[in-house]
């Protein structure tokens, strides 16, 4: 049979992230695949060199829509190490709380996308409805659903009150009940098993060779988790299991993420019930003495690693960011080879490449003490008016 090469992406290959796969097909079967990236390069590492440490915090938060807390925590761990700041224990606990809430929100989102890609849209509807509960928790604690901005140099920006704690625990209890149902579904439902089993195989030796991280590596039986390997924040005091699975396929990745949710709920409750007393932040100097350090962090998608070099001024000399998806994409090409064209979206989605979401805003007028919720239409109208004042007319678009 003659070979044919088709491009998949960069527009929406499986998720809304731009990436391109060149697939060599023999009939419906894939005999070769290459990954092309770079459609979303925003020059953040260069931009970071021209901003102060505190400004960079808000830049780094926008590296990713979902892992916003992961990237700022990695960055801030580096800055605090160079500044030799003693971050209060209560701040570390609150960062851990956010890290686990973020993992819950990311894994629930992924479960929905996986359901959608395997043609099980009820699962997508269920998990995304339930995901609202964890987004509500994050909003309750930080004021924001996606970019929580809880981290600041030397600590966190907001404390956790008793009412907030009760609100979070109430929602987590609901999620525990729902997640038990999803685990039953993932492990016992024959259609889920039939669609995901033996799809996107990644043997452990290939996973190591290609540098796979996070749930993708753990589903190939590799016990690799920064939270266990080099505990940061307060993970060394928390009781949780490192979840692995040995089927090496999409089914394994589904089970690993579903079971990790349970561990995260356990940790969230443990942190909330044992919050250390004390201040939530210390002062960190604007200028950081020359030095360099490297730190990693277990983001929902896997290991996130940052390198930071300071030069004695208030701006970094070099900041390097490597997000987990980049490490995992080399494995995707392998997973697709020998598989079927129809499995491609499921295989791509199974490493959980990231995407972002937000389309609403609440404006609070402190003088009138009033809150107003703006929807999409109102926000659009406001922005058109603002550009009109600057002499640009978008109203006819």
């Amino acid at each position: 049979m003659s070979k044919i090469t088709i491009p998949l992406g960069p527009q929406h290959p499986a998720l809304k992230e731009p990436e391109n796969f060149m697939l060599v097909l023999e009939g419906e079967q894939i005999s070769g695949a290459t990954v092309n990236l770079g459609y979303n390069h925003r020059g953040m590492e260069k931009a970071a060199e021209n901003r102060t440490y505190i400004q960079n915090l808000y830049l780094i938060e926008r590296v990713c829509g979902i892992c916003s807390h992961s990237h700022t925590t990695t960055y801030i761990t580096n800055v605090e190490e160079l500044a030799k700041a003693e971050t209060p224990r209560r701040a570390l606990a609150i960062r851990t709380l956010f890290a686990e809430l973020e993992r819950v929100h990311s894994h629930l989102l992924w479960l929905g996308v996986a359901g959608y890609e395997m043609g099980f849209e009820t699962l997508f509807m269920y998990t995304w409805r339930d995901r609202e509960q964890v987004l509500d928790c994050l909003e309750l604690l930080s004021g924001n659903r996606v970019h929580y901005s809880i981290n600041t140099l030397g600590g966190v920006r907001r404390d956790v009150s008793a009412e907030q704690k009760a609100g979070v625990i109430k929602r987590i209890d609901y999620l525990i009940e729902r997640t038990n149902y999803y685990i039953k579904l993932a492990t016992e439902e024959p259609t889920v098993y039939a669609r995901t089993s033996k799809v996107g195989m990644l043997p452990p030796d290939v996973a190591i060779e290609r540098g796979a991280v996070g749930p993708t590596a753990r589903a190939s039986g590799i016990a690799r988790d920064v939270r266990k390997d080099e505990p940061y924040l307060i993970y060394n005091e928390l009781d949780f299991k490192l979840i692995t699975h040995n089927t090496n396929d999409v089914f394994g990745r589904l089970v690993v993420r579903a079971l990790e949710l349970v561990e995260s709920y356990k940790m969230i409750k443990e942190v909330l019930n044992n919050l250390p007393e004390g201040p939530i932040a210390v002062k960190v100097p604007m200028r950081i003495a020359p030095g360099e350090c490297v730190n990693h962090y277990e983001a929902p998608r896997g290991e996130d690693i940052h390198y930071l070099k300071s030069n004695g001024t208030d701006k970094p000399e070099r900041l390097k960011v490597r997000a987990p998806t980049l490490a995992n994409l080399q494995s995707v090409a392998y997973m697709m080879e020998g598989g079927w064209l129809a499995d491609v979206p499921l295989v791509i989605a199974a490493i959980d490449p990231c995407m972002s979401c937000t389309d609403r805003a609440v404006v609070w007028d402190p003088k009138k003490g009033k809150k107003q919720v703006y929807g999409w239409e109102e926000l659009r109208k406001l922005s058109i008016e603002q550009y009109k004042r600057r002499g640009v007319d978008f109203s006819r678009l």
Partner: protein
Amino acid sequence: MSEFAKEEKVKSEIEAKFGGAVSNALVQRKNRVWLDLAPEKLPELMAWLKAAGYNHLATVTGFDEGENLGAYYHATDTRIIITVKVKTPRSNPVLPSVLKSFPGAVSYELELQDMLGIKVDGLPAGLRRYPLDEDFPKDEYPLRKDWKVEEYIAKNPLFKPEAK
């Protein structure tokens, strides 16, 4: 120091094996080892690290040091991160590829080429550039310190829609 026994052990093993090529080896703190290396020994050391259990190349950081361009290879066994620093002269920056030991590093090496202009010897031919755009100038390297965003914007008409 007995406190960092494991770190000291791997450091002295590398120093014994690669003698003259290694300098400034340092145990910075728990789980962090840094060392400078002569670039021609890079593939050999990376193969040794992989065999010794440091089988995950977390990333490669490119860095403009002025006269030299540097590349820092962060290899880890998921606990100890060993950062191997190599330098290459700015006038003719070339480094050997480590793809033989770490095939997953292809995007990190492409990044060294694109962002700093370090030619990586041994990368397979026919790869698309990464991470920069196809029509980004081929002789400009944004992560070099003498590359200024303002200059690039000033000479690129795309960024000035009002001037059309």
